[in-house]
Each structure stands twice: as structure tokens, then as C-alpha cells.
């Protein structure tokens, strides 16, 4: 298998390779999910620009819940704004 850098004309063969760029480091505000309030409706998932929200099984709950991949979350807080159950709040990001 050839490598991208050996190919001519700007051909990129590493599909989906931006995934190595963890945009989570951009974040100023961190969305935090209140699992008690979250109904798993999936509205946040639909509107997340990064696709870093998935609705999946979480330990301790029967229903699937909103799960945020903080590796890629840029902290735009659309999820917080759009959540109909006010289950997402924000905190200032700190190391």
C-alpha cells in the first residue's frame, strides 16, 4: 500500500484522517450532560457540527443517553441551546 506523501498530485488515501486532529483542545466552554434529565431524544446529536455526540447506553441507566466525545467537541454549545429538557449545561474549560 503506497503512502499519501509518496503519491503525486495531492492524492490523499488516508480516508477520514482529520480524526487525528483532536479539536477538543479549542474548547473554552465544556458542555456537561445531566444524565438524570437527559431523555436520549437525540436532538443534540442531530445538531452537533462535529458529530461528537452519540446517543448510547450509559452505565447505570436503562435508556440510552447523550454522550459527548470531548476529543472533538469544540464547545460551540449548540447542544445546550437546543436541548428541550435543559439537560446540558456549560462550565469553563480548565486543564
Amino acid at each position, binding site marked *: 500500500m503506497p503512502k499519501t506523501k509518496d503519491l503525486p498530485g495531492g492524492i490523499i488515501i488516508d480516508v477520514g484522517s482529520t480524526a487525528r486532529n483532536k*479539536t477538543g483542545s479549542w474548547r473554552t466552554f465544556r458542555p456537561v450532560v445531566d444524565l438524570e434529565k437527559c431523555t436520549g431524544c437525540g436532538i443534540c446529536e442531530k*445538531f452537533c457540527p462535529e458529530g461528537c455526540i452519540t446517543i448510547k447506553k450509559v452505565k447505570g441507566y436503562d435508556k440510552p443517553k447523550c454522550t459527548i466525545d470531548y476529543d472533538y467537541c469544540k464547545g460551540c454549545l*449548540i447542544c445546550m441551546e437546543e436541548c428541550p429538557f435543559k439537560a446540558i449545561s456549560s462550565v469553563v474549560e480548565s486543564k
Partner: protein
Amino acid sequence: MGIGLRQFAPGHRTCAGCGSAIVFRHVLEALGDDVIICQATGCMEVTTTPYPETSFKVPWIHVVFENAASVATGVKRALKAQGNNHTRVVAMGGDGGMIDIGFGAVSGALERGEDIIIIVYDTEAYSNTGLQRSGGTPFGASTTTSPAGKKIPGKQEWKKNIAMIAVMHRAKYVATANPAFWADLQAKVRKAYEMEGGTRLIHIYSPCPIGWHVDPSKTIKVAKLAVETGLWMLYEVEEGKLKINYKPKEFKPVEEYFKLQGRFKHLLGRKDIIEMVERHVREHWEMMEKVEKEGIDLPKLV
């Protein structure tokens, strides 16, 4: 797996709260795997493919501003010559790439009735280069090349309506969509995907929080208001017949939409301009509802 992640990886450099990124995820999810995308220069090209990386997991080619539709034409014809009739070819571009610079190629493809899908994600300005005004910029919006000053309150021309221009080209299918109405957006892309022969064009509203001076968290709020104020009409035109997909029971005041966006800040309190925009919206709706009710075959007008 999140929406569209099968086709479109995260880690792209779009700004936080990017409306176009939301649009792309839904469009790509609806298109599925058997597509080739020809993408004009623009935000979504620059941010998704910084060499040697790419966000795309489907075949994708970057072409210059001018010729996304022409390249898509060539790719589709080459596929057909190889006996491949199943792979769909999509020309994607922003308002700069499709409504202005690449408009000739889009018009040509529409006129020839090429078997391709054209997706226009409309950020209503050249967002990639620092928000210069484009043909897609709406009336009154302040951009770096139509700045709001004491004498001239932002752009003084109306938005170019690419969807209706495509209809008049006798396109097979034309639709407008909005990411706040994502199910409608996906259904329209899917419909265009399943059609064969003839050009299908989808014009998608695509909020740009940085350029429009909107809080990143309000991207979808703004998109929803665009529809609820009547400024962005959701419709589809199939074989010349118009169908309006969503009619707000009561139009929200345009000022509510303007209030959220810095690009319209100078218009707040300008009753004369707001009234003019609202009248424009009303007249547009009246005309379109009449066309729908009477079943007017739009391309026959020309």
C-alpha cells in the same frame, strides 16, 4: 455512530458552531457510500482537507471555484462510459462557488440536463476569505465589502435566488432546505439521490456564526428563525411543479431574526427597512402560494 460519521470524520477545522458542518453531515448521511463528490473551493474544502489529511471517507475531488459542475459532468459521463450507472456524482459548493463564480458551469450543467446532483450550501457571503458580499448575501446585511455606514445600510441588492434560476432551466428536481429542519433536508437529498437522469439542485441555508456575528450556540436558532420569519422558504419543485413544504402559521417578525445577528445590527430600529423586508417576504409568499395553488408549470413562464 453519530450522523454522517460513516462518510465524514471529525477533526475538521470548521469554526465552533459551523452551520455548514451540520449541513454536510446530514447531506453525506443521506447520500450514503456510493457517491463521488466534486467540491468547489470554499470553507468546507479548506477546512476538511488540509493536506495530507481528509475528513471524507467517500471519493472526493477538489476543483476550483469555477467548475465543480463541469467536473461532476465529466466524472458522471466517464462512469457511464464504464458501464457504471449506480454511482451518483455530486457537485458541492458554497454560494461563492455555485451562485457567483461557478454559476456558468452550474447553468451549463442544468441546461444540458446532466445526470448529477448539485448541492449549494449557502452561507450568504464569502465566508472563507473574510466575509465579502456575494450574490447570496441578503438585503441589508453588512459584510466587509458591503459595510453598513452612515449613508448605506449594508448590501442594497436582493439575494440571488439560485433555486428558482435552476427551476427556469427546467431542472428535474429543485429543493431548498435548512439544517434546523434536518429530516426534511435528508429526505430531499435522498429524493435527489434516487432520481435518475436530469439535474437535481438543492439549495441549503447554512449559517456562519463567525461571519454573521452570531453566538456559535445560536446557529440552529438562527436557522429556525429564518424559516419562521418566512425569509427562507422550504419548497421543492419537481418537473416544474411547486410544492411548499412548510408554512409557518404566523410569520415571526423579521426583527427577531435580525436581532440575533451582528450583520443586521444596524437595521434594528430602522422601521422603514424592516417594513420593506417584511413586505418583500409577504409578496414573495403570496406569489409562491398562488403558483402552488394554481399548479403553474414554472418553466413554461420562460
